[in-house]
């Protein structure tokens, strides 16, 4: 059965929409394989607009790896904007891939990468446009397996009704394994239909199939238990961890779009995982242990990526890039290699110490010194102990003083509002900190031409973190504190005008909180919001708090739960959490102990440099920290 391109039907619509190029495909390094020669066909979706989805590393990596397999093809699909959605509905054009414009429903698997929960309504748009039933139990042999991945998939329960399956952790190896299971099943003649295929995937313990688990509730709304409902399904599902990043140097050939996207650069992950132990940080908790990519692989990837893409900027990505064991040699080596060229290098700089500035100086060798970013996250010393962000005020002032005196003119500071145990004074402390930063900068430079920008957002407690039990701060309190902070900074005659302020209001955080720690009952809210027109919830111009609250009120009318129950309610130690059967490797007792330590302000060191504190990941997953140094150096490219 061959599949025809939808492009002739799409093309007349493209004259009537904004930025039509995003729907056309044909990116440099994209791949179109022969439909009939492939046995396993993946549609990979990033559930947001093309301009956000295209640069996504996860999708690009899987796209390349799957297309390298001989009997597998992978194409990409993104959320269409409402202008095209309306035209597609009017003309009966289904959700398509941008590579060969094939209908998404014709694929075997629709793999959706959820970096954030705010893409859930966009999933429903795509399923509906594709002609795939929204509810997994209504799907037939004609429909693809809808499979979720990405960080939000560590609690897929709010979208469990809409998913056939979910995977936790690194996708490289499990995507290949799933392809293999699917290929064998198809070659056997698809015995037992969808359920047998899902059973084969679930029985490994590495793929979560929500419908094979039943959730029972207490009368008060809490979960009683989550158990498999058929034999052969393991009661826990484990995350996947790629141990040797040097064996997986992807993307090798980054996709280069014609359309403008949010990240116009070639990005190389220099390590995965983070053991700094910031208690709010879900990424740091669920991607353990730390696994470094070696300096030589990083150098090779940058060289190939720049050559293949033509990008003029290279980003060295990780959760805390200055923590790579050979980061000084990496930055110096790359700066040497590309000195005098037009290639710019960047390192997300969040570590608050002088070493970080050395690195930034190195990378800006032939560029300009505009702004540096640091993330103290908490305004007061007490708050930073609660979140385990081990930065003292002296550290921060010393660091920014160094930055200003070495020619940096702007310092950006990231904070969060609404952290557990936070009081008004903790947030107002940010104003004092910002003033001290400006004061120190003026003294160090003798100039008034320096700025500090405070950027602050609402904190959302996330699954698989010590704060998973915490009460989320209500949005009224968050907004009141954010306004008070603004007023305190503005009122200052001496420093106020040198301080910039960026903040997000607290309402979207409540919806994010509902979706982050929600259970299967939240699925009906998502569906109701979507049916009411909810789209692109990550975009402030499309997001409607009132729509979410109205939908929740309707859906929860006869339930013992409501939005507050999911968000601002503190959980006790023994409450069954919706994601307890999904194993990120973290020991639940350690997480609880760390939550108690947070409340008493006790800090935890980084296990890369201090003894193991038994978070549980390495023994559970059979993994261990993989760090250098390798002792190698990057040679000039002309020598190689």
């Amino acid at each position: 059965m061959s599949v025809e391109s939808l492009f002739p039907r799409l093309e007349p619509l493209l004259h009537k929409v904004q930025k039509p190029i995003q729907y056309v495909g044909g990116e440099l390094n994209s791949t179109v394989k022969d439909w009939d020669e492939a046995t396993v066909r993946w549609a990979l979706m990033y559930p947001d607009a093309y301009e956000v989805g295209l640069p996504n590393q996860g999708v690009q990596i899987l796209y390349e790896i799957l297309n390298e397999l001989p009997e597998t093809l992978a194409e990409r699909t993104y959320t269409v904007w409402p202008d095209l959605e309306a035209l597609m509905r009017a003309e009966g054009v289904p959700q398509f891939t941008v590579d060969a414009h094939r209908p998404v429903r014709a694929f075997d698997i629709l793999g959706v990468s959820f970096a954030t929960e705010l893409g859930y309504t966009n999933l429903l748009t795509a399923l509906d446009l594709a002609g795939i039933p929204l509810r997994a139990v209504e799907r037939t042999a004609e429909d693809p397996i809808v499979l979720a991945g990405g960080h939000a998939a560590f609690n897929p329960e709010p979208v469990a009704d809409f998913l056939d399956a979910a995977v936790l952790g690194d996708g490289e190896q499990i995507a290949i394994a799933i392809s293999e299971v699917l290929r064998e099943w198809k070659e056997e003649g698809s015995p037992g239909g969808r359920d047998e295929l899902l059973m084969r995937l679930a029985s490994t313990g590495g793929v979560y199939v929500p419908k094979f688990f039943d959730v029972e509730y207490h009368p008060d709304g809490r979960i009683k238990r989550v158990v498999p409902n058929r034999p052969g399904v393991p009661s826990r599902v484990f995350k996947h961890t790629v141990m040797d990043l040097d064996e997986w140097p992807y993307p090798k050939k980054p996709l280069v779009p014609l359309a403008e996207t949010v990240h116009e650069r070639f990005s190389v992950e220099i390590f995965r995982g983070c053991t700094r132990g910031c208690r709010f940080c879900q990424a740091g908790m669920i991607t353990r242990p730390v696994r470094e990519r070696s300096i030589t692989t990083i150098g090779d990837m940058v060289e190939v990526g720049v050559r293949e893409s033509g990008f003029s900027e290279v980003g060295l990505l990780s959760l805390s890039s200055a923590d790579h064991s050979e980061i000084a040699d990496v930055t110096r080596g790359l700066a040497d290699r590309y000195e005098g060229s037009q290639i710019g290098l960047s390192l997300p700089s969040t570590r608050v110490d002088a070493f970080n500035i050395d690195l930034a100086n190195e990378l800006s060798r032939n560029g300009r010194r505009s702004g540096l970013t640091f993330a103290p996250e908490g305004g007061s010393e007490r708050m930073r102990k609660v979140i385990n962000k081990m930065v003292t005020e002296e550290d921060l002032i010393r660091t920014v003083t160094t930055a200003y005196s070495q020619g940096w003119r702007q310092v950006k500071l990231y904070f969060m509002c609404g952290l557990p145990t936070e009081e008004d004074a903790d947030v107002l402390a940010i104003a004092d900190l910002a003033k001290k930063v400006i004061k120190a900068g003026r003294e160090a430079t003798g100039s008034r031409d320096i700025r500090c920008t405070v950027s602050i957002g609402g904190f959302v407690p996330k699954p698989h973190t010590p704060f998973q039990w915490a009460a989320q701060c209500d949005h009224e309190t968050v907004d009141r504190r954010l306004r008070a902070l603004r007023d305190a900074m503005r009122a200052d005659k001496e420093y106020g005008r040198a301080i910039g302020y960026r903040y997000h209001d607290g309402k979207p955080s409540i919806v994010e909180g509902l979706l982050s720690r929600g259970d299967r009952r939240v699925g009906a809210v998502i569906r109701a919001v979507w049916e009411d027109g909810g789209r692109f919830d990550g975009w402030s111009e499309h997001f409607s708090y009132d729509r979410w609250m109205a939908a929740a009120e309707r859906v929860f009318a006869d339930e013992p739960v409501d939005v507050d129950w999911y968000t601002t309610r503190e959980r006790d130690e023994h409450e069954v959490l919706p994601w307890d059967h999904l194993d990120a490797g973290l020991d639940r007792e350690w997480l609880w102990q760390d939550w108690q330590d947070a409340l008493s302000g006790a800090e935890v060191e980084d296990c890369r440099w201090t003894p193991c504190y038994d978070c549980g990941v390495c023994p559970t997953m059979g993994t261990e920290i993989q760090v250098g140094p390798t002792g190698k150096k990057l040679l000039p490219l002309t020598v190689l």
Partner: protein
Amino acid sequence: MQRLRVRYAKRGRLRFTSHRDISRAVERAVRRAGVPVAYSAGFSPHPKISYAGAAPTGVASEAEYLEIGVNRPCDPRRIRAELDASLPPGLDILDVIEARTGTLADRLEGSVWELRLPGADPAAVEQAVREFSAADRVEVERLTKKGMRRFDTRQAVCSLAVVNGTGTTAGQETVQPCVILRMVVRHETPAVRPDDVLMGLRLVAGFAPPSPPEVTRLAQGPLDAATGEPADPFDLDRAGGDR
């Protein structure tokens, strides 16, 4: 600094690229191809690539022009091959010459446009063309960057003719007969675009194409006073420069 003049096409699906999309694609292709492009001095250096009057988003073209400054002499034929190989199919390099004359943009006085009108009634198109050509002024309104503007389309149109041909109707793969409008339009301010002329046809004769027309710029260059057709803007450079 050597300057290279480039004629390129945007074809097929890539006609949906905007001017900004093309400039990003060209900058990256120049880097991938290793063209020794010169950079401007200053705080944030930019590659010295300049574009002359790009065709609108959604309109294909066989005659777009840009100029690249390079910091060492290059063989135009080699640049043509290497740049073309580095660009996605659909952005195709057609010609590269070394600039030997002043501003290229000044020489792009007019364009030949081809509009395929799938499903249109040939007689209705003929009638509309006759009425348009007979008029002295045909004013249309369009939202421009400076707000809603009202301007004449008739005087800029040097010639307008119906030619018969074939094309694909929107939504179908099969090639069918279709009416083709061919026009030569002088570049003026505000620019009179093919869709402005179509709007003019609607205003004078009530003609509207049944589906989105496929528009292609076939050529642009200095308008020949005798024929009213554009000549190749590279002719002067090939001849060795200004005299």
